[in-house]
């Protein structure tokens, strides 16, 4: 029974035009493999793997830090007093209203040229880190994610039905308990489909850090292009790597979403 269903689904998916498309795609892949230059690949493979690892690390760290920042920012806008809501809204507007590249350069070149003017910063234990590029990259990407997600979380917090919160109050939950057990989980559940898309956007923002000398997979590809004068092959491989990571993100979020009951109150 299950077998026939699988076969039926396969034949539905594998229509004649799809077979043609698959053959064309296979031909293109083979042509790329044999007609293009890939001899540089073994020499740069360790560097590329390191670059992929750096990109994924950057994505995970900034997304995790960003969402931790976004929850209070969203909550302040949805239910906070004005003296918290207004700065949070201004923060979101500024972050969403200016290009990430500009924010990154403002932090890296601006702060980077500012810090050495203070002797006590140069003497502090943080100085060895502040002289490197990655803290600025992480900071810019985190703030950007927090700005976009703060807006998403605002909508999610505001969208939780009032009855749920009243029920929590009626159960005698304290405000913090009600927030932790009722408000936050339901808001996160609402935000989850949007978060998947936003995380893919965050992945697509990571190559910008290559412009401030961080070595992610994008800058490895640029280096290959500069050193070997091979123009297209590194870029094609780069596109493939990003598509694979996107696939993993989408798959992971789908798994998380499937674990959560779908019906919203």
């Amino acid at each position, binding site marked *: 029974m299950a077998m026939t269903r699988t076969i039926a689904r396969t034949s539905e998916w594998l229509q004649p035009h799809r077979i043609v498309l698959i053959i064309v795609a296979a031909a293109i892949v083979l042509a790329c493999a044999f007609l293009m230059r890939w001899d540089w690949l073994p020499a740069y493979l360790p560097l590329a793997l390191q670059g992929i690892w750096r990109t994924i690390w950057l994505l995970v760290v900034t997304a995790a830090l960003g969402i931790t920042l976004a929850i209070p920012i969203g909550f302040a806008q949805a239910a906070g007093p004005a003296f918290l809501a207004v700065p949070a809204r201004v923060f979101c*507007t500024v972050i969403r209203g200016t290009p990430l*590249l500009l924010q990154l350069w403002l932090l890296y070149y601006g702060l980077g040229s500012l810090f050495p003017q203070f002797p006590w910063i140069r003497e502090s234990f943080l100085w060895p880190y502040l002289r490197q590029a990655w803290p600025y990259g992480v900071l810019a990407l985190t703030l950007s994610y927090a700005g976009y997600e703060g807006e998403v979380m605002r909508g999610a917090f505001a969208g939780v039905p009032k009855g749920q919160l009243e029920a929590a109050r009626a159960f005698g939950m304290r405000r913090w308990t009600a927030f932790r057990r009722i408000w936050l989980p339901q808001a996160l559940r609402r935000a989850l489909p949007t978060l998947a898309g936003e995380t893919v956007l965050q992945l697509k923002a990571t190559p910008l850090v290559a412009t401030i000398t961080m070595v992610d997979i994008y800058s490895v590809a640029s280096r290959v292009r500069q050193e070997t004068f091979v123009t297209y092959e590194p870029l094609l491989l780069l596109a493939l790597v990003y598509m694979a990571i996107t696939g993993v993100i989408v798959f992971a979020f789908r798994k998380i979403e499937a674990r959560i009951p779908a019906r919203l109150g």
Partner: protein
Amino acid sequence: MRTLTDIFLSASAAGLAELLAFDPPGWGGNLLRGLLASVGIACGSFGLGLLIGICGAYGKLYGSPMARDLFGLYTTIVRAVPELVLILLLYFAGTDLVNRLLTLLGYAPVDINGLIAGICVLGVVQGAYSTEVLRGAILAIPQGQIEAARAYGMSPILQLRRITLPAMAPYAIPGLANLWLIATKDTALLAVVGFNELTQTTRLAAGATKAYFTFFFAAGVLYLALTLVSNIIISRFERYSRRGMPSVMETR
């Protein structure tokens, strides 16, 4: 001991006015020209993206199975690969292809205008997103309206112009507004391939004067102003496209 404004703006008020002055020792004129270039690219790429989006949405909804799959492939790939990588790929591959085609046809290779290349590249990226936005908007139109247009014997073009586009506008405008804001900010990515738009100009100015904070702040203010002005215009459009529809204000 430096004062705070000195450190943050790397200049006193008089120095600031000098740095941002419109005439050549100051960089204000360059920044505004950069902003104009950015707005120009954003308009062009948004318009091109809208055209691609209308074709893509129609292809995905009413096209042959092959067209559907090809448009699906296009939107999936473009939305999964970073804009920066796409810009490099399309910028180099695109100009290379055009020149090879020209030499094949017996013409001399041309130097492709950076402005047009930028508009085309960002337009292709925008097209993928607007395909999805417009597809959703067309699906949101009550089916009866399109059927009625067919029953009146309207040609597909007339139907698109009179029924589909106006009827889907209120559903499409929020998504398209987002896309417009993304288009204005994506122009900054062209700085990486060396195109002289606002971000690149800012970087040059900052590098030349060493007043990094001043210039990046000034550019940020310009971008923000562009976003806020756009928001005002967009909400006008939205109100216009929603005329005659029931209000959707939430009552909480």
